[in-house]
């Protein structure tokens, strides 16, 4: 994956760069808005990670300018201000996702990989499949190994979200945003209880587990290796 990181804080940048490079990604790092805009419009990256506060041209303006040139590279904003207004501003400027500093690297990595390989084809599929688990989006039916599984509407959406991102990790907050459209941080293990309900239906009665918990990061659905 080719990633462009626009970040002026050296410590944060090092932390992010090291993480992505260790995972075998190619990362370019630029510290100010003007150079970043030049670099981003010239090269083709899979994902751009942009700090909102930058010397010179700020992150929001960089992405606005980039979008006006027609570049569609997925962008994730980093910011040290929390609150939904900043999130909405970021999305309005053409950002695709948003993460509040400080964050765990695993959270950023999960979001970046969800953005980078945002499946274009998957969206047109009407039946999602992972191993022997099938989700029929038209008839709103789930089945595993031919056996029908009854799901509540939110459970269905949760499973659909996980299956659309097969093999990728979705964090607690990503699920919260995508399934429930909540952007606050619950102080309780409420997401976990929904996962365990879902797991009880799609995994428990079967031999091979498909829904995996990734320690201190999130959840992922994939076929056994």
């Amino acid at each position, binding site marked *: 994956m080719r990633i462009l990181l626009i970040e002026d804080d050296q410590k944060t940048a090092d932390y992010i760069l090291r993480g992505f490079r260790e995972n075998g990604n190619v990362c370019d790092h630029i510290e100010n808005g003007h150079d970043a805009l030049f670099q981003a419009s010239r090269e083709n990256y899979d994902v751009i990670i942009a700090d909102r506060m930058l010397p010179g041209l700020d992150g929001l303006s960089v992405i606005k300018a980039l979008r006006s040139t027609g570049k569609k590279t997925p962008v994730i904003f980093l910011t040290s*201000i*929390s*609150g*939904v*207004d900043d999130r*909405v501003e970021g999305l309005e400027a053409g950002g695709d996702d948003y993460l*509040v500093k*400080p964050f765990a690297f695993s959270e950023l990595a999960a979001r970046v990989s969800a953005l980078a390989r945002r499946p274009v084809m998957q969206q047109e599929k009407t039946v999602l499949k992972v191993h022997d688990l099938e989700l029929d989006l038209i008839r709103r039916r789930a089945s595993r190994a031919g056996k029908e599984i009854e799901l509540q509407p*939110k459970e269905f959406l949760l499973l659909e979200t996980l299956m659309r991102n097969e093999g990728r990790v979705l964090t607690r907050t990503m699920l919260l945003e995508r399934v*429930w459209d*909540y*952007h*606050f*941080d*619950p*102080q*309780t*293990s*409420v997401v976990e*209880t*929904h996962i365990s*309900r879902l797991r009880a239906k799609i995994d428990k009665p079967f031999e091979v587990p498909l829904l995996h918990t990734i320690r201190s990061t999130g959840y992922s659905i994939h076929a056994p290796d």
Partner: protein
Amino acid sequence: MRPIKLFQSSGFRIAFTFTLVFLLAASIAGATAFSIIGEELVKRHERVLASDYETLRSTFLAGGLTDLSEAVAAHAAASRNHESVYLLLDPGSAKIAGNIDAAPSVSTPQMVPAKELGLNADFGYFIQRGVVGGNALVVGSSAEDISELQEIFVEGSLWAFVVLIAISLSGAVFLSHRMNRRIEVIQNTLESVADGKFDAQIPATGGGDDIDRLSEIINSTVSRLGTSVESVRQISNDISHDLKTPLNRLRIIMEEAFEKQAAGEPVAGEIEEAIGEISRIIGTFDALLRIAQIESGARKARFADVDLATILENIAEFYSTLVEDEGMKLEVQIERPLIVHGDRELLSQLFANLIENALRHCPGGSVITCSLASKDSLAVASVCDNGPGIPENERDNVLRRLYRLETSRTTPGSGLGLSMVNAIADLHHATLSLEDNKPGLCVTSRFPLVGLKDL
């Protein structure tokens, strides 16, 4: 404080401009009246002259030149002070009779200066001249009345102007003084606000005029500003007090790790503990920032009409699995739809915080009830439980940032949940009340409803 100069005062400027406009209007009206009256007078003179002339001419037609010259002489003798003038000249231009010696030859009746008639006066004469049997007949009348009228008019107008200017200038000075005094009061008030006295208020004069309305707006702005400043002061106090504890704990953990490391023991446990502690501190900061952002009112820009019933129902559904897992019961009684003007995200968080509190602070087996109904054009939403409740004397305190009951020392939490609930309710103009559920706590918020007609 800078005194306001007379010419810079808006009251004076308005009054002054008005005076000028008024004078202009008065001058135009005066000039019009003057010319109409003048024209009328001229017409009257012309009529009198024409009839005089006709009378004399008919004398000639009846009795010839002798009668005419007698008549002219009689008329001339009857006119005192040359009020009317008469002159009869023979074909050789020699005077036959009359009270003047010369007259210019005019073809139509018109005004001529007295000098041309050989008279000494500073007003003119209307004269008519014609030929009667080869002799020249001139009749004329003095236009003294017209010049007198002119004089009276000019003098009268001048005096009227002087009085008018005097009155309106003193009015302007009076108005500007009154205005200046009020503006100075506002200036003084704002200057004490700048000095940090946020309780300063501009007294209302009770007239309810535009300055009063402006003062009201300034007053409410200042008091809101005061509240914000006070809340900032309060926050920084609370934070410095309450963050000391976890920071101290962090320090102890790090010192222990340091000692252990010196002794060659593994320190992974301490580091993990420290990271956990730091995450909690960050979480507290995030929540504090979020509360501050909510209180700033910036989110209002994104308010829309939302269905409170759907919001509460979704949150209740979201938590239902966790409530069950905790061995509690969640009951939902919702009247729908109830439309309020607000922010879906924040309203969701409000109910989430209340349900999480019940989950956290109530023992297993408790019942949580979410209810929503309309009453007196308010949407009344409550989250109640039958847990330990909050003692009456603590109900105001728990709304403060970072405040937690002594009994909750060991339960996880940062003491910001209810502060956020309070801030969100405030932003929505909702009243928040904490009541005794006998046993348990009942948190009720009352939102102004949006009329269904607006849907």
